[in-house]
């Protein structure tokens, strides 16, 4: 479904990505791990069009997408929940999800129809599925951090993506919130048959969720394989433990 081939991205003289490769097959959950600064978030932003790569290419269902803008990539079927909470703070929880649903239905340009009666059922259904239905009327900026992360995931799901990208979905969450969020990701991916690409520092979560793991270091791919093979890989031990036995 997704193929990243030798992408490079640098900021001034810092090479954030130097020839990273990745492939995500349909229906799989792929995790990207690596130390801080390995280039995980940069790669996600290149895939979703927020940053243009300096080299290499990104193919989605066989079609090159690296020259497209974020909204065009979203319409191709890639949706992302960001590492830092990225929601519409002044709007209600309902309006946050509704905006994404309307955009997905290509109804964002309707001028003389009342938005309050549009996409209500689908919006409430999505809120129900992530457990935010009761808070539909709350201003999004007033939600707890954990709920904001869940809302962000709900927004990403609202565009009915074929590939869902989650950048550190449990970052900054309490252990209880992490457990809830992990359960939610597991349930939503199973229910919707989603293909998921995510990065995470919580190794337990990575091992329990993913079908494949890709390990990055210094902007490059070290390995991409099933969790057990990654666990046994000397290159990964070298990267994480500095060659310790």
């Amino acid at each position: 479904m997704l193929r990243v081939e030798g992408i490079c991205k640098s900021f001034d003289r810092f090479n954030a990505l130097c020839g990273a490769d990745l492939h995500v097959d349909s229906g799989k959950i792929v995790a990207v791990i690596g130390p801080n600064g390995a280039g995980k978030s940069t790669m996600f932003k290149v895939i979703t069009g927020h940053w243009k790569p300096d080299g290499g290419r990104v193919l989605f269902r066989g079609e090159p997408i690296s020259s497209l803008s974020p909204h065009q990539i979203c319409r191709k079927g890639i949706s992302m929940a960001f590492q830092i909470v990225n929601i519409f703070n002044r709007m209600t929880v309902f309006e946050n999800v509704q905006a994404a649903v309307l955009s997905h239905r290509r109804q964002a340009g309707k001028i003389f129809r009342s938005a309050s009666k549009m996409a209500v059922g689908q919006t409430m259904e999505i809120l129900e599925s992530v457990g935010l239905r009761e808070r539909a009327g709350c201003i999004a900026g007033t939600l707890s951090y954990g709920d904001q992360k869940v809302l962000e995931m709900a927004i990403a799901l609202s565009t009915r993506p074929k590939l869902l990208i989650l950048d550190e979905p449990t970052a900054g969450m309490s252990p209880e919130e992490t457990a809830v969020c992990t359960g939610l990701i597991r349930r939503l991916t199973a229910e919707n048959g989603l293909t998921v690409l995510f990065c995470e520092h919580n190794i337990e979560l990575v091992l329990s969720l993913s079908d494949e793991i890709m390990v990055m270091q210094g902007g490059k791919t070290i390995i991409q394989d099933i969790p057990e093979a990654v666990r046994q890989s000397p290159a990964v031990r070298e990267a994480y433990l500095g060659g310790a036995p």
Partner: protein
Amino acid sequence: MSEASSSLAYRLRSLRRLETFACLAAVIVLLLLPFVLPDFYVYFAALVLVTGLFATSLNLVLGYGGMYQFHHAVFYGAGAYAFALMLTKAHAPLWLACLCAPLVSAVLGFLIGAICVRLSKLYFGMLQLSLGSLVWAIVYRWYSFTGGDNGINEIPLPNAISSTTGAYYLTAVVVVVCLFLMYRIVNSPFGKIFQAIRDNPQRSEAIGVNIRLHQLKGEVIAAFFAGIAGVLYVVVEGTVVPDMLFWTVSLEVMVMCLLGGWYTFLGPLLGAAVIVGLRTFTGAYTEHWSLILGIILMALILWLPEGVLGLIVKPANSKMELSAETGRK
């Protein structure tokens, strides 16, 4: 439906009923005004309505779209000049002039917008200010066509609308219709997405919104309504001057939005009433009324960053949220 949802729905229905009642009351007051007030105050009310429409059109892009619209007056002036020129130079029928003038503003909005939406925030505003000033300079210098700094006077208007009362009623009807349309727009999917772009452009793009195109559409719509306000200004004042397109007018109308509440729909109308009132009534006592405006602006920044109506609406929203939360627990 849960208790929280039904409580919120009930409060929303109550608020909507209150809004409908307030709107009906306002329309009745507007209809009766010329019967109870002397001519000067009827003229003043018409001026408030025109300026209020102008300010509300700015707030479409400023408050709802989050765009730094630094030179909105250029669309107001363009509408006024197009209307006056069509009547004086082309001797066009009134209805045609009324129809074409806002379209001229909308086309200008499209041209300026198409260049400016490539940039964002301050850069957008500064480029717009530059392009708007260019239009002002052309109008100011083109004596043979626009009358230069003399403007255009003796604009032929039918008797029905050249009297104070006639101009007032035309203004009131058009302003009410325009406010209704703009209210529909801000509550439409287009308006909601516009607010989403204001809140978070990055997230908006990530849900598939073409933000540049959306902003350009918003710019054209705002320019169109500013053009209508320009036409009404000519009807009320009977004249048009290049000062209408000067950047200080844009600043003044921006202050109206800030004063009334730029996150509220009726805030700019309230702001317009205060500023036009100040200019009209303090102007009789002192030439330095802008000093008072300066003091108001300072007070606004320090104590009322969301404007007068923002101060009222925000606690009301918080109460509704609290009741939704309480209902949930």
